[in-house]
């Protein structure tokens, strides 16, 4: 370290000497470059002032005493900035460790709470879920029933990041113990509602949408707990309709009833499920309209479901300048035959 200091003090002096002789912009450019390398070598700002003092002493030995004293004054003023600069280094290391820890946790979350998109005859499924921070507070889950039915859960914890992800694990593990393929959507929400109400802070809310698709009957049965409304694309009329539901968010009171609904899904129809991270995108200062989401989906509707959701995500990612405001989850199911 001392050797680096001596080298840099020499460099500084030489550059200053050149500047004093030429007074040209090139010397200023060179000291700017040098300062970047000083910072990388962990040289503190008060050390730079010291280099300046040394250089002045060597280049101008007959320098007025006044100037020498004034430089010592400046040096004293800089010591605190030197401490701050060291704290900055430490903070960068801590931040790096912390981010690394969260990375591991995020990856573990993927392992523990992840789900596989099932293969169901006659249906094309596309799913994308991207967290705003490193840990995802949106949750989704597929289950293929013994009777060939498809169960889809989608949930959103109010909040983002680590607390939301922790809360989500409670949902997942509770559901793990349910015989989902024989429970109805409203029964599942009922059960989860009681789990959440028992366990979770009153300030924490979880929205959820549970749907079951029965391929043999081409019917979709669903219930919602305050979740962002999904959409149904009617292929025959080429129109999108909002899937209207009633149902309180999970966890408010233990005895809430969840209405259950049913709809027919015809060939080429689509069902779109999402979280508010999709519909509450921002374009600069402006919130987008839900029609915009549908427009973008329509634009990519010719693609397979998975590519559709991927492209829609990319569109909104760019729109928000690569800074998601909330966890983004989008699922599209299309009946193919």
């Amino acid at each position, binding site marked *: 370290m001392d050797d680096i200091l001596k080298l840099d003090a020499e460099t500084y002096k030489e550059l200053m000497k050149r500047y004093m002789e030429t007074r040209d*912009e*090139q010397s*200023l*450019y060179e000291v*700017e470059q040098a300062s*970047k*390398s000083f*910072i*990388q070598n962990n040289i503190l700002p008060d050390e730079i002032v010291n280099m300046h003092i040394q250089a002045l002493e060597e280049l101008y030995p007959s320098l007025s005493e006044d100037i020498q004293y004034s430089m010592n004054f400046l040096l004293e003023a800089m010591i605190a900035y030197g401490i701050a600069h060291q704290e900055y280094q430490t903070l*960068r290391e801590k931040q790096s460790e912390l981010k690394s820890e969260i990375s591991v946790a995020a990856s573990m979350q993927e392992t523990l709470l992840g789900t596989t998109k099932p293969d169901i005859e006659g249906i094309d499924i596309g799913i994308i879920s991207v967290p705003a921070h490193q840990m995802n507070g949106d949750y989704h889950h597929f289950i293929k029933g013994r009777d060939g039915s498809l169960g889809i859960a989608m949930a959103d914890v109010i909040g983002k990041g680590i607390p939301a992800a922790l809360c989500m694990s409670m949902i997942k593990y509770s559901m793990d113990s349910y015989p989902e393929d024989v429970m109805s959507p409203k029964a599942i929400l009922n059960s989860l509602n009681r789990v959440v109400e028992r366990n979770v802070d009153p300030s924490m809310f979880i929205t959820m949408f549970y749907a079951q698709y029965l391929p043999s009957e081409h019917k979709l049965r669903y219930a919602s707990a305050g979740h962002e409304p999904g959409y149904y694309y009617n292929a025959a009329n080429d129109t999108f309709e909002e899937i209207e539901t009633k149902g309180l968010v999970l966890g408010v009171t233990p005895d809430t009833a969840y209405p259950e609904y049913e709809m027919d899904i015809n060939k080429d129809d689509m069902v779109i499920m999402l979280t508010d991270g999709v519909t509450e995108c921002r374009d600069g200062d402006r919130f987008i309209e839900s029609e915009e989401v549908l427009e973008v989906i329509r634009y990519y509707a010719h693609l397979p479901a998975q590519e559709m959701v991927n492209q829609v995500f990319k569109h909104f990612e760019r729109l928000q*300048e*690569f*800074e998601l405001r909330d966890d983004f989850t989008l699922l599209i199911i299309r009946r193919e035959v």
Partner: protein
Amino acid sequence: MKPQSCVNINKEWDIVGARQLGRDIAKKIGFGTVDQARIATAISELARNIYLYADHGQICFEIIDNMEHKGICMVAIDVGPGIEDIGQVMEDGYSTSGGLGAGLPGVKRLMDEFDLQSEVEKGTRVKAIKWVR
């Protein structure tokens, strides 16, 4: 707005020329010493990016002088490889970690307004404005 003055960036030496021009304009507008140095450093960073990553490019300066305020506007354009991951390039740490050394977050801090547009294989355009305090 007054007419633009532009500097072509082809060789490392052109970075110095751009700095000089920018500093002179800044002095003329009435920026103080430390702001002149900050402007020169911002120009340096933008010009260096052109020099390092694109074949060639240009930095143009404009004086903005209206009812509300006076300032300097610099636009750095190149038809280089473009920036693939803008989010990552704008993430802090790029400035002093010496990573890829693009230093764009630093430019954003030195100036008052900052806008970046880039397309892979098309090029990059950075616009930055600093107002006289």
